[in-house]
């Protein structure tokens, strides 16, 4: 199975940098809580954007933080059911602090 990476803190937490340095193709990175602010335009490196990694953000938090119009184009929005599916279909799951 592939790895699910969780980012739930806003910048300047440097968790995202460590996460991006440790990705493997087919991994998924999920941004939620204030972590959605870490995937706004310009946050993802070009190498991350061109990698075969899926970047997703949780809809309820994107809306709560008013970040919908500012998300990096590489990030797709998912809902709570997708979150559950992602957790079930990935192993291990890494919560970057």
């Amino acid at each position, binding site marked *: 199975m592939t*790895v699910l990476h969780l980012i739930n803190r806003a910048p300047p937490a440097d968790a995202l940098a*460590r996460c991006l*340095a*440790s990705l*493997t193709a087919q991994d998924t990175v999920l941004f939620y809580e204030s972590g959605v602010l870490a995937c706004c335009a310009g946050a993802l490196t070009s190498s991350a954007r061109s990698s075969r990694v899926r970047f997703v953000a949780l809809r309820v938090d994107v809306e709560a933080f008013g970040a919908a119009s500012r998300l990096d184009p590489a990030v797709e929005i998912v809902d709570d059911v997708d979150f559950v599916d992602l957790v079930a279909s990935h192993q*291990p799951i890494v*919560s*970057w*602090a």
Partner: protein
Amino acid sequence: MNRRYLVLVERPPAVGTLAREALDLLLVAGAFDLAPAVLFLGRGVHQLAASHDSAPPRPLEALATYGITRIYVDAQSLRREGLALDALAPRPIAVDGAAIARLIAESDVVLTT
């Protein structure tokens, strides 16, 4: 079959109790022969910085006693925090991003503190 455990330590010493809890978790896992791996990264690399005074032995010294030999440190974090590998104890194995990705992929459970 034993599950493979990896513990990520991202917090510096003396910030809350999380780092201490990570150590407890490692020692318990070691005592049950689960042979967990531990990776220090971000400010967590300071956990490995050996003290130069005559302080009592640090809890991390117990890792070897419990058979935990897979101790890794993120080379990039080391550079950023201005620490040298030979100043660390117990002596970890320096790894880059690709090696960290392999460590994670080879684990069943990854715990973060």
